[in-house]
């Protein structure tokens, strides 16, 4: 008996990524996005999801992919993490993949210390490699990065103040 993992696959750049289907809330077309000041640059802003305000992350920017204009195929994956909804802008959402658990390898150590520390593993699916993402790390590391940026900002501000 080999348990299968149900993964929602989506494309960002050339890669296919996946998140567990249990963390997915829904997939929507990209509505008008309201930019928020002071937010990290990969944070696109907030959207109105049927009366709820949901923040949206651009995964292309998050993963350092070259920027591309949004088109018809772009989707927002609304994921639930820690009781909160967040949106992820992806190039396109593809399908639900069933990956046997033994076809999943832990992420290589080199990825662990890099910026891509939100990767939990690599799944093999019909000869393709699916990068499995950890929602908690993806969203929380966003917080961490923001804090880092703030600290840097604060220092820069302090330095500027000292100069003048």
């Amino acid at each position, binding site marked *: 008996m080999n348990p299968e993992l149900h993964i929602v696959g989506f494309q960002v750049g050339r890669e296919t990524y996946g998140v567990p289907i249990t963390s997915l809330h829904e997939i929507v077309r990209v509505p008008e996005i*309201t930019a928020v000041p002071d*937010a*990290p640059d990969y944070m696109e802003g907030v*959207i*109105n999801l049927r*009366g709820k305000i949901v923040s949206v992350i651009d995964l292309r920017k998050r993963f350092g992919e070259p920027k591309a204009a949004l088109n018809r195929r772009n989707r927002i994956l609304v994921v639930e993490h820690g009781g909160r909804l967040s949106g992820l802008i992806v190039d396109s959402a593809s399908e639900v993949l069933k990956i046997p658990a033994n076809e999943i390898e832990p992420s290589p150590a080199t990825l662990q210390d890099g910026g891509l520390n939100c990767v939990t593993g690599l799944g093999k699916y019909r000869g393709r490699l699916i990068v499995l993402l950890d929602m908690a790390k993806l969203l929380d590391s*966003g917080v961490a990065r*923001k804090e880092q940026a703030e600290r840097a900002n604060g220092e820069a501000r302090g330095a*500027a103040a000292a100069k003048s």
Partner: protein
Amino acid sequence: MTQFPDERAAEMRELFFESAQELLQSLNEEALKLEKRPADAELVRSIRRIVHTLKGDAAACSFRELSNAAHELEDALALESASSHGSLAEVAFTAADTFGAMLAAYRRKGKLPSSAPLAKMIRELTQQPKGKKRSKKSAKAAVVPVAWTEYEKLAIQNAVSAGKNVYHLTAAIDPHCVMPIAARQLVLNALAPLAEVLGARPEAGSPASTQRLELLVASDKSSDQLSARCRIPTVISSVVVELVKAAEPNARKAVPAELAGHATASPASPHQTLPESGDEHSAIGRASHPVLAENILRVDAERIDSVLNLVGELIIGRSMLQQAFTEFARHVPKDALRGRFSDAMAFQSRVLSDLQRSVMKIRMVPVEQLFRRFPRMVRDVAKQCGKDVGLMMSGQDTDLDKGLLDVVAEPLTHLVRNAVSHGIESAEERVRNGKPARGTIHLTSYHHGNQVIVEVTDDGVGIDVQKVKAKALEKGLVTSEEVDRLGEAEILALVFRPGFSTADEITEISGRGVGLDVVQTVLHRLKGSVEIETRVGQRTTFRLKLPLTLAIIKALLFRVEQRLYAVALNAVAEIARARESDVHQVHNHEVLQLRDRVLPLVRLGRAPGRGAQAGSEKIFVLVISMGERKLGMIVDSLEGEEELVIKALDDQTVATDLISGASILGDGRVVLIVNLPAIVDRHGKVRPEQGEGIVSGILLSHADRKSLREGTAEVRL
């Protein structure tokens, strides 16, 4: 005891914590009274009742340590020696604190605090020399007053309103009676045709170790008739019937505690009468006070919030409908259905407004809930400082949003504590200055426009403006040129600056600004403000101004760089129109001459390119007033006024102090609500760097600003 499922137990525990907080509050209140009237046996009993309830509730939630501690205290209080003990109030205070600490520990699931000091005090109580007792009282000691439960008190109230007299019937069971348990049933049977039994002690099914049977009965018969009925030969040796509460002539009105005369109908054994039964009556009468509030429903605030959220969404839905309808009307100008649509929508809109108001009202609670903690606190702090301070409170019934109430509690506590420890002088000093030795702190609350005002006034030393000035200069908060330009109110406002005063200056008379910056921060977060009014040597008033609610605001919508933002309308003093050429630069800051005033400006968008040099572009300037300060915000265009349902922007990654929340417009667009204090703050802090010119683009997002700095005119999606 049946084991509840976890969820149910957790819910029960929450309820318990809440009711326990109230019990502790009452305990504090009774203890305060007891301190003033130490010999009042009724107060002791009231305290005992509170402790008893707490014990029972704690046991039901299996908080054994708390239950045990309460039990010990209850027992000790029942002792004769307790009521005559001088420092009983002190014990009650200690008990309230210890129980409070235990509750907090249970809530956190943390380590229980030691109850040793309390246990020691209780032991002292119980070990009081018993010789003092008067013989008359020893009779009373044998007769432990019965504490009727809430339910029974409610029954009393109901019976009284139904036009019946309520009696307390004490029957002594004949010591020779073969079956004391049967005696109980016999008495009940005997009474059945005459009266309704509301409560009985010992309760049914409990082991009948007692020789006495106490009943609470409601009847329209006289006490003599009842006692005659109960006197069953060889079973009941004596019967005492007392009137607890007379029937109300006007059944609607609740009668306050009144002492009804009691009838003793037992010549056989006079020693069985309760000498101070009057106390018992009034105790029950007093207890009827909470009974009046029987219609009150305890609801988790979260549930109300979720209803409020739904109402908020309905309001958004209404705007959507309205917009769709307007478009529809444009497409089909002459359709008979239009009128009906419009009527239906007007009706729905009205009901919705009512619904919104009603839900908001649910969230409102009287300020009393906030004020009631202060008598104890003022007493404690005054005692610590060795001062004599009285507290007066007024306007307790002013309603305030529950969410606001909880947040404002801390700054208010701070202010009251400050007023006692720094505001009020020592008794000697007061007398020397011709003031009454006892200082007074006045807490008051009232509505003013769409704001709620809470004031803390002390008749103490006042704040010396010159001293504040000197201190601010010394601390380097302001420069000497700046200080000369400031008005009195502005100088007083300096005490709210962080770093104005630090903890090591608490003892100084001028050191009143301990943590006042915290007060201001909280108030700003609540979209309120704080003001000081003072007269040296006479009084100081701290005035907290709070919005009525946090959930809905009237807002002005405007655009900056094509983006839509909103700002609370009540902060906008006026809207001025100007041209770019009217904007002048002073010290790298932009200012605008508005009538006879020079208005500092803050730009939310980017400044017009240097190449443009047009200068004739029209701009709008929102004149914002923040306390004493006025500031102009340059915006590109105005969009109108709308009532916004605020939704928190709670996602950590987008949370910024520049934005206080977001809202959704009728057409589904998200609008961000600008946090004015933060804007003002940033404007004050940021010093333009040399060469880069005017700082601008406060509201532009991170990426925009980066590209702005790099000089690329790239516009994002």
